């Protein structure tokens, strides 16, 4: 979402990257987005994850390990900070 907006802005003004102010920035502040694990790089503790709009990024999974393809994670600043479970985290443990 924000990544696309920034890319478009950069095309017109390459020296002036901006954050998307109407929808919020994915990585700044306390904003986190749900993403699905697509593929694992277990040796490096990383996973390729995709959001619901199809945007993908490499995500640190150390804080919620172990993860498997299909797991749904809450991602902030390139790091998965929580798992999204139907029953809630405490019940899931």
């Amino acid at each position, binding site marked *: 979402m*924000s*990544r696309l907006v*920034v890319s478009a802005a950069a095309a017109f003004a390459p*020296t*002036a*990257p*901006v*954050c*998307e*102010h*109407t*929808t*919020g*920035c*994915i*990585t*700044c*502040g*306390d*904003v*986190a987005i*749900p993403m699905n694990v697509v593929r694992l790089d277990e040796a490096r503790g990383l996973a390729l994850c995709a959001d*619901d709009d199809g945007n993908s*990024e*490499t995500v*640190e999974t*150390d*804080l*919620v*390990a172990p993860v498997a393809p299909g797991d*749904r994670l*809450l991602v*902030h*600043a*390139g*790091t998965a*900070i*929580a798992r*999204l*479970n139907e029953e*809630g*985290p*405490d019940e899931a*443990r």
Partner: protein
Amino acid sequence: MKHVDEFRDPELGQALAGEILGLVEPGRHYKFMEVCGGHTHSIYKFGIDDLLPANVELVHGPGCPVCVIPMGRVDDAIALAHEDNVIFTCFGDMLRVPGSDGTLLDAKAEGADIRMVYSPLDALRIAKANPDRDVIFMAIGFETTAPSTALTLKRAKSEGVANFFCMCNHVTIVPPLRALLDSPDLRLDGFIGPGHVSTVVGVRPFEFIPAEYGKPISVAGFEPLDVLHAIHMILTQLKEGRCEVENQYARVVPYEGNPRALQIMSEVFELRPHFEWRGMGFISQSGLKLSKAYADLDAEIRYSVPGVRVADPKACQCGEVLKGVIKPWECKVFGSGCTPERPIGTCMVSSEGACAAYYNYGRFAREREVV
């Protein structure tokens, strides 16, 4: 979208708003603080304040990590960015925050190599791709973001990336909340607690709010029904004469937080004796710096920074906005001298800033009809 759409149901929202109306006592004014900038954003994006009774007032807290960075730290960042052979990386919102003599974006226009990143991991990638240059990552954020920086610093060490450094501006949420609660300026009836900070620190750190200050708090998610539900929970506590920490965001937030994240943070960071907050001054043990074990990755040790305290612009009332003492539109320069395009204060810069949220979503109405 799973975990999103079900928390945006308009009919459920109306039903919750109706129940909230039934919980408030006519003639009593309720003042709740949403601690987190993400909540401020949701409230204005989804028009949540318009669903509330007129005697339920929401005030904005200090939870936007960009807004609380003082001008002196921006000057320090610009000084680092101007060092020879340095690539300076930061999140996008920081680029437009004014220091005493311009922004990081201005420094970029003057020739400094400043690059926007989406994560600390992106900054580390830049370092690996540019082994002959020093890459500095400007770390900002509360406990939500600090583990991400910590993991990247650990990764840099374990992978032997010798040209990656961190200018650490991470802050912690409890000290400013204590400062607010001790402030005579503000009378609050309850708190909407920060959801994603709590995924890391858990719910326990907020127990002092009911225990020592007698205020209820509900840790909340960021969808509109989450925020309405949290307000409902706080009002229910007040009506029943209870005062405790409740967890509205239990589907994501464990009571004990994320022990792994806390362990990594304690390994990589240590508390600063004090840290300056915009508009709030110095607050003891409210900021993080790199621990001794990671001192070789500390940009402020590798390079010297001015470290000068700079007073906020006189016209700017960000401090009062951050403490919830005034509404954004009550600031003398809101929407005139200070706009998202030409911000004077940090609250107008970040998408999570209260002033930017007001400005972007057109919440200029100063009086609302009783629902």
